């Protein structure tokens, strides 16, 4: 495989859920390995749907009409199953309340490891929990944790599989400011270690502070993209799209 193939490439992708009109319209872009990409856009603009394309949930699990092609490190998502792509692309879903389904934090992490027959020893799990700031939480019931902690458990379950790309859908949506900051600094560390981070985020302050590049979705199309600073300079367009201008003093 040549290095040109590496990364996530979308070629003229459109998608419509069964029976309804197109939710994503002719999207083309590529995400290079090592990027910290932010995706912004108002509610219903298709951000979550876009994330489902990145590990093959569309077209393998979610029904609808897909046009175009999504390539992950040179392989089209239509060619292999979700389990194959999930090893490369880790997903943290939007609602932390719905994201855990095991009795203990340890089992939550072991679930993925077992599916891929990866070592699930105590040291490994302790190390991962430490990485997300949840030392000593292995035996806790995920349902009893706070939103921020649940989100970290989901992230830990993903990190355990050591994916090159990590996708998060509105991770700060139900978190308080402090937990969000903690989560983003974990993401920054992962990015420094070489992980590609793709984060859907409505709070543009976090994107301004952490993302290298930003894409703005509107009604299923990418209407703005580029380096974070350049995108957020387009104040008039952003205002028209109803996207908050980040508070730059925080930088």
């Amino acid at each position, binding site marked *: 495989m040549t290095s040109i193939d590496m990364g996530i490439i979308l070629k003229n992708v459109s998608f419509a859920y069964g029976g309804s009109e197109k939710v994503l319209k002719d999207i083309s872009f590529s995400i290079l390995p090592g990027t910290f990409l932010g995706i912004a856009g108002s509610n219903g603009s298709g951000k979550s749907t876009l994330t*489902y394309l990145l590990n093959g949930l569309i077209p393998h699990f979610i029904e609808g009409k897909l046009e175009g092609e999504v390539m992950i490190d040179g392989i089209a998502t239509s060619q292999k*199953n*979700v*389990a194959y792509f999930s090893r490369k692309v880790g997903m943290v*879903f939007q609602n932390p309340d719905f994201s855990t*389904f095991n009795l203990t934090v340890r089992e939550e992490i072991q679930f993925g490891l077992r599916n891929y027959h990866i070592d699930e020893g105590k040291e490994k799990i302790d190390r991962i929990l430490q990485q997300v700031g949840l030392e000593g939480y292995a035996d806790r019931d995920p349902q009893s944790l706070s939103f921020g902690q649940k989100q970290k458990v989901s992230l830990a379950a993903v990190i355990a*599989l050591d994916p090159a790309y990590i996708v998060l859908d509105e991770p700060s949506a139900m978190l308080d400011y402090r937990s969000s900051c903690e989560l983003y600094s974990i993401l920054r560390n992962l990015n420094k270690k070489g992980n590609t981070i793709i984060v859907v985020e409505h709070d543009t302050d976090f994107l301004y502070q952490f993302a290298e590049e930003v894409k703005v979705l509107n009604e299923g199309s990418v209407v703005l993209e580029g380096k974070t600073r350049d995108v957020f300079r387009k104040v008039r367009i952003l205002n028209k799209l109803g996207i908050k201008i980040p508070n730059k003093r925080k930088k």
Partner: protein
Amino acid sequence: MDSITIARLKLFVLVMMTVFIASSHNLYVLSSAIFILLAYLVFLLSGTQVLYRLKPMLYVFILILAIQIFLNSHGSLSIRIFQGLSAWLKLTTLSLLMLAYTAVSSVSEIARVLSFLPRKIQLMLTITLSLIPVIFKEAQKIYMAQNSRGYNTKSLNMIKNTFPIVIPLLHRILHRSEQIAMIMQSRGFNDE
């Protein structure tokens, strides 16, 4: 004992107890099974959660009794009532048994014990079983939300009472099971 052995043991106990309860006609045995399960569940979960589980069984009780008294014409009245009672005790025991099992078994555990089944069936069963405790929590939330918006649950009409709870509940359960399936797949659970 390693975790898979414990998981298998739990499922084994569940199956054995189910068979035992389903084939038992002794009211004393059934009553004591209910009593033990209740004590265990109250200890494990909480009184309110268990009460919540028992409430629908009250309707079932009335229903079964009505059928036995008015629709069943075999045998004397006392025999029919006895049969109805034992059927109801059985259902209640099984319902509590399922609650106890799902309260102590996680999705990944259930999935591992069922690993001899085809992946698709395994996925379905796993999600269904793991949803049982969730369903009761969700129903409770919806019930409280309806009440806080002035919905009158004191009226005696059972159908009218349950309808506004069942519809949003179904919606949430479907949404939730889809979410769990998506997450399981995203963590490498292969259904092929």
